[in-house]
């Protein structure tokens, strides 16, 4: 009988990590400014050199690389959150935005844009901070209202989350409708999803944060396998169900909130990647979770590369690329794969 072995796990993860690094390197060379390998190696071997053509260094280091890293982090966060929420809600249609965190983060960010807040804490800009605050508030709210007799009821959580998300989205729509034209542009642009906005300090914080979140969720991967069977069976198989539910909800929501706060609403990663990966590697979350994370990163890095090069110098919102490329491909795979078909009952 076959089972997931450490060797197989390491092989797959290693392979994907190499792919990710490849995608990052590939993406660094794409763009309207022409930077080639020779330039890049010169830069890397002597980052502080005065001889380096300065504009190219600026572009690579300050414009492209942060963007690529952000794509990596956001893609990974959304994919992992998607996997975890699908397990928690026992529903393959769940995506990271279903429980309202994304709407809360969006609202926070939009309020910051609307009020033109320029409160910078150190070098961190206020928009993502407000976004994160909004997301956190939403998480606390949904969490509190999901409890029945001090235990989390997943059905209640789903209802509360969806309704909360809808209400927050309505508020966002209201704000959009009364905003002046200048602010409006900023708001809409933010909502469409944008990977270009962040600088290194915020980037590093978000990366670290998401990484810790993903690792904690990874530790509970086996628990997610059991949770999917239903709470009764999971309990009978020895799982601490309440703890796993809490970690799953809070972990997935926090990394989603962080991702949305820095990059806006990028769709199609959180629902597409988990499905795709499940079709290829199966439903064991010990493998599914990290593979989805890495795949999400690769996907978003490549999608963003396309978004900023295909109609250069105009930038297409990356959410457009993820939907247009991902959707048809997914449908194709669905038709040709046994594993992708959800049960009829």
């Amino acid at each position: 009988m076959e089972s997931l072995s450490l060797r197989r796990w390491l092989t797959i993860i290693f392979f994907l990590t190499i792919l990710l690094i490849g995608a990052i390197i590939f993406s660094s060379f794409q763009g309207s400014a022409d930077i080639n390998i020779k330039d890049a190696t010169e830069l890397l071997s002597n980052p502080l050199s005065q001889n380096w053509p300065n504009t190219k260094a600026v572009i690579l280091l300050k414009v492209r690389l942060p963007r690529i890293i952000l794509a990596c982090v956001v893609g990974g966060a959304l994919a992992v959150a998607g996997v975890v929420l699908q397990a928690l809600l026992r529903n393959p249609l769940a995506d990271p935005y279903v429980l309202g965190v994304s709407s809360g983060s969006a609202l926070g960010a939009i309020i910051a844009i609307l009020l033109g807040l320029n409160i910078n804490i150190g070098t961190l800009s206020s928009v993502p901070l407000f976004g994160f605050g909004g997301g956190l508030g939403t998480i606390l709210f949904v969490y509190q209202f999901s409890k029945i007799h001090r235990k989390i009821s997943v059905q209640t959580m789903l209802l509360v989350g969806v309704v909360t998300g809808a209400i927050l989205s309505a508020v966002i729509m209201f704000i959009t409708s009364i905003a002046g034209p200048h602010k409006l542009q900023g708001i809409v642009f933010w909502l469409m999803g944008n990977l270009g906005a962040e600088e290194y300090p915020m980037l590093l914080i978000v990366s670290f944060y998401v990484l810790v979140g993903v690792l904690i969720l990874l530790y509970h991967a086996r628990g997610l396998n059991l949770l999917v069977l239903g709470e009764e069976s999971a309990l009978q198989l020895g799982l601490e169900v309440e703890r796993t539910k809490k970690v799953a909800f809070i972990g997935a929501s926090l990394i989603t909130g962080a991702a949305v706060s820095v990059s806006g609403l990028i769709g199609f990663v959180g629902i597409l990647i988990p499905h795709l990966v499940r079709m290829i590697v199966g439903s064991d979350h010990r493998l599914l979770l990290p593979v989805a994370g890495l795949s999400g990163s690769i996907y978003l890095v490549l999608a963003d590369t396309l978004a900023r090069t295909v109609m250069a110098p105009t930038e297409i919102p990356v959410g457009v690329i993820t939907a247009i490329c991902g959707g048809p491909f997914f449908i194709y795979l669905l038709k040709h794969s046994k594993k992708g078909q959800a049960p009829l009952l």
Partner: protein
Amino acid sequence: MDAIYEVKNLKFRYLENWVLDDVSFEVIEGEILGIIGPNGSGKTTILRLLSRVLTPQQGEIYLQKKNIFQFQQREIGRIVGVVPQENYFPFPFTVGEVVLMGRSPWLSGFGFERNEDLQIASEAMALTNTLGLSNRLIFELSGGEKQRVIIARALAQKPQVMLLDEPTVYLDIGHQVEIYDLIKKLNAEKRLTVIIVSHDLNLASGYCDRLLLLDRGAIYEMGTPKEVITEENLSRVYHSKVLVEENPVTGAPRVTLLSKLMPGKFREKKLTRSNKIT
């Protein structure tokens, strides 16, 4: 013979009505106990309470002489294996993966299965005749195959007690006998205590050492099949006329349901001529 479970003054309700009302009984180690009773009498609820999925509002449950609430969830998973009645898998796990989940109470941390776990899972699948299904997806299987896989999962836990909720409801007669024979064998060879909830009175009567007849949340009768399965008990509890005779092969009580459409005098005649168990 020790009691592996002691249940004292158990009271439980989901909403307002008491589903179990002051229930006390013991399960003897190594026995096969059948829980029978009409729909809604509390049978599945008892299994849920015994596996600590539910918490009783009143009363105590002792597992191996220790209060069940003093165990960690994992410890219970190592002692009690449950085969629930309904099993829904929203995602495509393979049969092998499902059976290996039975090893979960014995794994820790990230939990890659060890050779010994694979071995135990294979044995469990061999016992339930499901080895050949190992790489199939769980939702490709028929109801009966799936049921046997779930039983294999429970066996993979290497439990000391197995709780089965209507284990043969989706099985054809051949598989029904196969499962009950398997239970009997495990009970005899490995001293596995078994508690089965069943609607099939004849199978229960044939294989169980003792029966517990539940009626609206209370114990109506508990004892050997001969003591519990009587026309009087069954007709009172199930509100239905039955004929109870002695099974010519096994000697256990055999239940025949009497249709209400049968002409009255024919029913009376049948009753007086039967070998009634007294």
